[in-house]
């Protein structure tokens, strides 16, 4: 069991941190390597003519492709004592597809920080949200995520 107490000051600092920003230009080869790494052979990720036959302007990216932006969980100094981290899950909402050639900007904020006692000792549940916009400044997707630090 680790001696760890999450203070109100630490919670306030985490919640008031400025958004973490990141930018990605979506390259065809990257989308294809991502689809291959899943083992997803859907031609909509590989063949522009096929993608166009479905009404898309270009090759699209798989639904969780945006995970490659800012993939490291937030590891704020306030929680550095807790060395281990687990991914608890994600909730995605999709507004528009990601196309090859897009420039995507992501913005991540921490929405809640809660200390709980679990079977592995003191754990802190960090819930955050990433918003993704494209080059036209249009919100295309959001991902709410949970990490457990212990």
């Amino acid at each position: 069991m680790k001696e760890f107490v999450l203070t109100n000051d630490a919670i306030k600092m985490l919640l008031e941190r400025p958004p973490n920003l990141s930018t990605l230009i979506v390259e065809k080869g990257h989308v294809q390597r991502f689809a291959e790494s899943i083992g997803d052979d859907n031609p909509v990720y590989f063949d522009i003519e096929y993608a166009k036959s479905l009404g898309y302007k270009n090759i699209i990216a798989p639904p969780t492709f945006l995970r490659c932006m800012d993939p490291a969980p937030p590891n704020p100094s306030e929680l550095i004592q807790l060395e281990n981290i687990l991914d608890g899950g994600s909730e995605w909402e999709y507004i528009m597809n990601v196309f090859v050639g897009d420039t995507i900007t992501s913005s991540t904020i921490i929405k809640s920080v809660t200390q709980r006692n679990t079977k592995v000792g003191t754990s802190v549940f960090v819930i955050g949200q990433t918003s993704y916009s494209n080059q036209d400044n249009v919100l295309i997707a959001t991902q709410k995520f949970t990490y457990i630090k212990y």
Partner: protein
Amino acid sequence: MNINLDDIYIGMELPKLYKNPSTRQLVQYAGASFDYYEIHYDKDVAQKNNLPGVIVHGALKAAFFGELITKWMEPKGKLLKLSIQYKGMDIPGDELIITGKVNKIESLPNSMIVYCSLWVENSSMERTTTGSGVIELPI
């Protein structure tokens, strides 16, 4: 597959995906997703973290859900929501069955909204990951 609206009913199962992620695939996914956390490819680091060995990325299992649902709904469907909860860890070399079930159907004037539950089952029949998906299909 070309989904036929008349064939969709509450309780129907989505066509299963069978996955058998190797450590090699975890390295591939790490490279493609930029998730270089060592517990997914370095046994020593994994064991230092009190794990039996390297474990499958949760996000790779989330990607399997994405593949399952997009293959089923294409070419007309639009994925609106996808959620994933990790319940247990999976190790490379174990066969994972990815599947889902239709739970609810809503009819709108020009489309149908289909709600599915999703899960990953390992070879010990444990559901190590659960989730849900919402898709819209034009009528």
